[in-house]
């Protein structure tokens, strides 16, 4: 059933493996969804290091490769630092490159990630959010993602298994867009999403080919190939460095409208959309708002609905784009609210609060004196329960009513 039907494909057409010839629905995990999505995008090179805390993403991709479903160079390396260098090189040579990592693996490729971004190599990578080294807990937590904030990668955070599938496909459109040419990470919470099995709509490979087709109509990217008279990243002292940094920064800012553009096209093709940089849920007439990201968003929707039924005018902002930070849309969504809470699954040393709180606060600094509360929950697999979120909403509401409030709250 996994045969590659090369013989039946018309001349010049890409092979259509039988297993992805038709759209289908399967019960798969978040990691499975990421692997199916990456396979459907026909990467030329996949590089990864298979050890804990890796994920089933690369295991499933290795199976697709072994079964003849995925026609790529599958490079098993001796460590994540090499995996990052391989996808950087493959991308610089003009290929479509993919990797997946998590936690220790992500921070072990830290220096090489600066190269990939600085060279403007549009690789796509999955990061399963888990706690980084220090206290040995390879459990769910977003601190790993926070720790690579300033590497110059685009970073997205998703909420469920279907969104993992859809965002991974969109990530290639975003990364390889001629106006962007930046590497992209799709982040999702370890355990709560990486191991979460749900029914997922999997498009056919032809549908994905069509969605990605505009990339082929773009001006070609420069290719760094053996023997070619082209260099990259050798030296950039003084103004050369300044110019490239300025251009990198400008490309990062262009990601905001581009994400909404590639998502609008995705929605037209597949009928699903996610709000672009952020999604606002029941915020329009809300007095108070909770801002969060990842798996906690789904739980928060249920609690917001319950609080609404009790008469509390609460809304929810789901942060999807982490880098660049969607400061304009956040400011717009939170303008005029009586109080705001931000729920983080990580901490921000030096500011004594959550990192998304710090950034949300910076984005709304012109808004005056509305109380803003930081909640830190879900570290190292701790469950962000409905009760926890209900308590947060109670605290935000109390602050909105002028009662004394605690600025930073650790849960449980």
């Amino acid at each position, binding site marked *: 059933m996994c045969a590659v039907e090369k013989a039946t494909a018309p001349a010049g057409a890409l092979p259509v493996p039988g297993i992805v010839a038709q759209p289908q629905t*399967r*019960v798969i*995990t978040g990691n499975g969804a990421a692997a199916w999505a990456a396979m459907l995008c026909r990467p030329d090179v996949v590089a990864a290091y298979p050890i*804990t805390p890796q994920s089933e993403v690369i295991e499933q991709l290795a199976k697709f490769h072994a079964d003849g479903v995925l026609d790529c160079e599958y490079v098993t390396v001796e460590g994540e630092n090499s995996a990052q260098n391989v996808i950087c090189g493959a991308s610089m040579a003009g290929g479509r490159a993919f990797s997946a990592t998590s936690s220790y693996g992500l921070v072990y490729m830290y220096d090489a990630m600066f190269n990939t971004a600085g060279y403007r190599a549009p690789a796509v990578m999955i990061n399963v959010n888990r706690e980084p080294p220090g206290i040995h807990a*390879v*459990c769910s937590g977003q601190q790993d993602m926070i720790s690579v904030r300033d590497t110059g990668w685009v970073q997205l955070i998703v909420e*469920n298994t279907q969104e993992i599938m859809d965002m991974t496909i969109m990530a290639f459109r975003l990364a390889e867009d001629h106006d962007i040419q930046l590497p992209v990470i799709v982040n999702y*919470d370890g*355990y*709560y*999403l990486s*191991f*979460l*099995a*749900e*029914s997922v709509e999997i498009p056919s490979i032809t549908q994905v080919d069509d969605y990605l087709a505009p990339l082929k109509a773009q001006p070609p990217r420069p290719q760094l190939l053996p023997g070619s008279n082209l260099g990259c990243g050798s030296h950039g002292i003084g103004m050369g460095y300044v110019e490239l940094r300025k251009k990198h920064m400008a490309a990062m800012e262009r990601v905001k409208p581009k994400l909404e553009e590639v998502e609008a096209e995705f929605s037209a093709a597949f009928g699903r959309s996610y709000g672009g940089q952020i999604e606002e849920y029941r915020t329009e007439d809300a007095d108070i708002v909770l801002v969060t990201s990842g*798996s*906690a968003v*789904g*739980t928060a*929707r*249920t609690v917001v609905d319950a609080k609404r039924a009790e008469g509390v005018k609460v809304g929810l902002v789901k942060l999807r784009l982490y880098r660049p930070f969607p400061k304009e849309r956040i400011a717009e969504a939170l303008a005029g609210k009586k109080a705001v809470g931000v729920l983080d699954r990580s901490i921000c040393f030096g500011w004594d609060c959550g990192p998304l709180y710090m950034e949300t606060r910076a984005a709304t600094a012109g808004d005056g004196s509305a109380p803003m509360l930081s909640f830190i929950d879900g570290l190292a*697999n701790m*469950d*962000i*329960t*409905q009760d926890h979120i209900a308590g947060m909403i109670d605290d935000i509401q109390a602050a909105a009513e002028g009662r004394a409030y605690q600025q930073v709250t650790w849960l449980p």
Partner: protein
Amino acid sequence: MAAKEIRFHGRGGQGAVLAARMLASAAAAEGKHVASFPMYGFERRGMPVVAFTRFSDEPIREKTQIYTPDCLVVIDPTLLNIKTLFDGLKPDGILILNSPKEFPEPPHPSVKRAAIINATQVALCEIGRDIPNTCLIGSLARATGWVSLESVLKGLADHLDGDLLKKNIRNAERGYEEVQVISW
């Protein structure tokens, strides 16, 4: 049917994680929305593992662990010693238990109804190894009526193939046929 929450308790290597997923696949085969995930620390054979399955006619948005299950599936009888095992089991909830013993008294005061089978013996006979997970899913289908045996077997086929699938189908069928449902 109202949404259902099932909590699986097993030990690493007994297939609790896969059992939870297979049950999700079975419910999906009946058109339900499903969600299932496990929770454990560092991967070690023999350590306690918890896994969760939800299914519902409505989309499932919550990404939390399960605290008030409608059903508990206990794959390893030695886990009955864990004090927190029965925490939150709903008053009309049911226990699906792998045990060779008879239970004249309930294993815990909060348990009023249980489906008990010596699933280890069935698995040793049908699979040749102590992997009683699929047997207990068959028992769950029989005791709860939430999914049909046919759907359970479809759910198995989502995750297994070949000879192993055949053996596990027999394992699940025997779980369905041989389980004893007891009320106290």
